[in-house]
């Protein structure tokens, strides 16, 4: 009997994909319910195993219960949606108005973003935090790219030490959030797709991308559009209830970002477009895959 109950609760846990504290609350509550229900059925004369079977049938499939719970808890308010979209909107404005040329603007922006990300981190890691966290990590990644442009020895040192260290750090943070819900870690990883798009658009010759100011200047309206697409998709993500619709929204925005990049670059063709779409879509699949591995090690024990 215990084994069947364990299986049911484990399946529920697998499908819940909520904050672990909420998950435990829900599982504990349903477990108490199952105990009550089984006890009553046994008092009415049903054998233990049949009582449990009847009770679990009454509860319904764990997948359905989990989906309904997920939809109850994970739909954000409009305020949360706006807050999550704000960092993308800020960058869209900065690029649209060409404020990025002002050397003071970007450092000030990153300090504000880091401050808000730290605030969110210390106050329960709400869902709006993820895009802010993404931008607060951006300088670390950008520094790695900049180091690659230094003379050969430094570039090799960067490749050998800095980049693996940054990748480890990013993986550590991403896996930490995957335990909660892999779809939210996408909000953190997804702006990287825009960054990859720029590098691809700038890299019109073999070797390192040619990140000249003139390129950045000409590409600025498109960059702004990319950030706007990110802002809209993130706001929709927070407001939508169904998980599959959320993922579909991000996937669609990934295709739109790829299209914007190709249109802006003039020289990239269909093959680059397909490659970029595949790369962006892999951003959606990798967290889902890693989460399955992470969750496999967690089990409900009664």
């Amino acid at each position, binding site marked *: 009997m215990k084994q069947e109950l364990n299986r049911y609760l484990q399946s529920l846990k697998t499908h819940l994909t909520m904050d672990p504290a909420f998950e435990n609350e829900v599982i504990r509550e349903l477990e108490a*319910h199952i105990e009550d229900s089984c006890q009553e059925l046994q008092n009415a004369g049903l054998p233990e195993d049949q009582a449990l079977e009847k009770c679990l049938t009454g509860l319904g499939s764990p997948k359905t219960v989990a989906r309904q719970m997920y*939809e109850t808890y994970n739909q954000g308010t409009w305020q949360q949606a706006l807050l999550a979209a704000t960092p993308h909107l800020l960058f869209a404005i900065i690029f649209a108005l060409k404020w990025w040329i002002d050397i003071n603007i970007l450092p000030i922006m990153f300090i504000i973003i880091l401050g808000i990300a730290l605030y969110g981190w210390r106050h329960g890691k709400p869902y709006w935090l993820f895009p802010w966290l993404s931008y607060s990590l951006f300088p670390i990644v950008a520094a790695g790219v900049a180091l690659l442009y230094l003379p050969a020895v430094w570039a090799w040192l960067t490749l050998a030490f800095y980049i693996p260290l940054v990748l480890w750090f990013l993986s550590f943070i991403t896996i930490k959030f995957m335990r909660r819900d892999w779809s939210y870690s996408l909000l953190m990883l997804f702006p990287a797709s825009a960054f990859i798009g720029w590098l691809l658009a700038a890299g019109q010759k073999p070797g390192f991308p040619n990140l000249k100011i003139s390129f950045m200047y000409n590409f600025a309206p498109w960059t702004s559009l990319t950030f706007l697409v990110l802002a809209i998709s993130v706001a929709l993500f927070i407001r939508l209830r169904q998980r599959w619709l959320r993922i579909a929204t991000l996937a669609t925005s990934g295709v739109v970002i790829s299209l914007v990049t190709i249109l802006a670059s003039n020289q990239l063709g269909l093959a680059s477009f397909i490659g970029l779409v595949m790369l962006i879509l892999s951003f959606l699949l990798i967290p889902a895959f890693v989460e399955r591995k992470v969750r496999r090690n967690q089990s409900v024990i009664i």
Partner: protein
Amino acid sequence: MRKQTELVKGSIDSLLLCLIGQQPMYGYQIIKELEDKSQGYFKYKEGTLYPALHRLEKAGFLAGKWEPTTGGRQRRYYHITNKGKGILEQKRAQWRDFLSAMNMIIQPVTA
């Protein structure tokens, strides 16, 4: 008694608020009370009840609290909040208006 599934589903929030408004209850107790008080008319699937309770809790109409029972076991009791009481009053008024309007139309005319 013939029942309309959609009508039953649509009334779950009002029923839960009304029942918990009378006294704090836990999930299993709510299922039983609903069934007993309606003489078997309201027979909710348990899997539907908990998402509904949590939805009302998230909206601030209910507050869930783990409390020990006489047997020493812990159960999550739902209490109605002041916001929930306000909504319940609104729902009661809506229901009274709906019922009287329906009666005016649907009841057979007596000579």
